[in-house]
């Protein structure tokens, strides 16, 4: 199938992009890397009236340290993030996770912000950002607000982005002490969406954030980490599992337990044992 007709606009600045969103309202659809939107359009499942191409906006690019946080421009591609020394130094979790995202020719174009805004519950980036305690920076003509990942990811393809807002950056707070991180996803083939996945970030103070993805309608921060039993109990009691085309709820639940046992026992600091 070919995409249904649409009109196209490539604003030169974020301000012009805001104007486009204001002018075209519900008709407007932001186009970043396009690696999810373009297939949906090619299947005529997505039929935007006006594509607002923000993939070249300099305001959305760049990776920098600012005020104790690593700030990633929303337009940063997976490939750029993987190459960036700052990312390797401060968020090895991303370096571990990004190679699991599709394939080289998709990572070259797909963006971190696009992944968060698309909010596919099987995506790696929302889970990693949630585990890292990241905030999403949303900008609009009126200004800017920061939203925690907990408040940002609301459900399948649903986020806290309001009309007129553009996801501009991701802010990952950097702790004083070094963090450990672990990532694993269980997928049938290299590059596939996971049947289930998990990210774990822990610090030397014993704080840990364990996040499951591809098991529910959004990434799930499971309470109880780093205690395996507490996490397993929470998985049983608190996580609402959703099936996908390949895997049913009971398998999702089982795999969640496998991931919890694996990541939490692997990464438990020795001194805490």
């Amino acid at each position, binding site marked *: *199938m*070919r*995409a*249904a*007709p*649409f*009109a*196209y*606009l*490539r*604003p030169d600045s974020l301000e*012009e992009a805001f*104007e*486009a969103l204001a*002018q*075209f309202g519900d008709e407007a659809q932001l*186009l970043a890397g*396009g*690696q999810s939107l*373009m*297939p949906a359009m*090619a*299947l005529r499942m997505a039929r935007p009236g*006006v*594509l607002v*191409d923000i*993939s070249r906006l300099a305001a959305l690019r760049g990776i920098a340290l600012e005020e104790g946080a690593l700030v990633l421009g929303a337009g940063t591609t997976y*490939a750029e993030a993987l190459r960036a020394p700052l990312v390797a130094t401060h968020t090895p979790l991303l370096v571990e996770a990004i190679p699991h995202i*599709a*394939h*080289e*020719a*998709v990572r*070259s*174009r797909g963006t971190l912000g696009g992944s968060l805004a698309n909010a596919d519950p099987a995506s790696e980036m929302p889970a990693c950002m949630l585990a890292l305690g990241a905030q999403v920076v949303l900008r609009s003509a009126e200004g800017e607000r920061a939203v925690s990942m907990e408040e940002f990811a609301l459900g399948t393809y649903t986020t806290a982005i309001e009309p007129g807002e553009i996801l501009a950056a991701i802010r990952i707070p950097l702790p004083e002490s070094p963090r450990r991180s672990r990532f694993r996803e269980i997928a049938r*083939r*290299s*590059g596939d969406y996971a049947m289930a996945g998990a990210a774990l970030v822990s610090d030397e103070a014993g704080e840990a954030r364990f996040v499951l993805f591809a098991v529910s309608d959004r990434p799930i921060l499971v309470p109880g980490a780093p205690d395996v039993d507490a996490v397993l109990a929470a998985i049983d009691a608190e996580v609402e599992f959703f099936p996908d085309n390949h895997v049913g709820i009971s398998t999702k639940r089982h795999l969640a337990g496998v991931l919890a046992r694996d990541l939490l026992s692997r990464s438990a600091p020795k001194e805490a044992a």
Partner: protein
Amino acid sequence: MTLNARTDMAVSLTVNGRRTAGFVPVRQTLAGYLREELGLTAVHLGCEQGSCGACTVRVDGEVMRSCLVLAVQAEGCVVETPEGFSGDPAMDRLRERFATRNALQCGFCTGGMLVAACDLLAREPRPSRHAIREAISGHVCRCTGYEAIVDAIESAALAETAP
């Protein structure tokens, strides 16, 4: 100010070393433009959803699915298709090894495979077989079972780094 969203636009690119200019419907993909307007039919469409890898090209030095990029998005870019890469010794070796190792049967995946392999060798001149398998894992081949392709890329890499 009223912004003007377009349904047709001018586009100019450098494709396989030559500058091109055209006027396209905005919904035309880069793959469609390369095939239909420029006659570069080694860019194959196996799914039009970014899953099969047959349309892979290099844009500004990075491999991409040309079915997931609009032609107008490539404005001003340097695009290399499987027909291109002239003067690239790695691509020359890959073409030779693909042919002699019978690393293709129907040939439909071959262009994308070659572009991916060339990109791999640029990043990693002596990849392991495992790395080769990972690097082409976004490319469906229904004919070969992949082993001959892995062999061909491996031997092209070895030839490249031989004294």
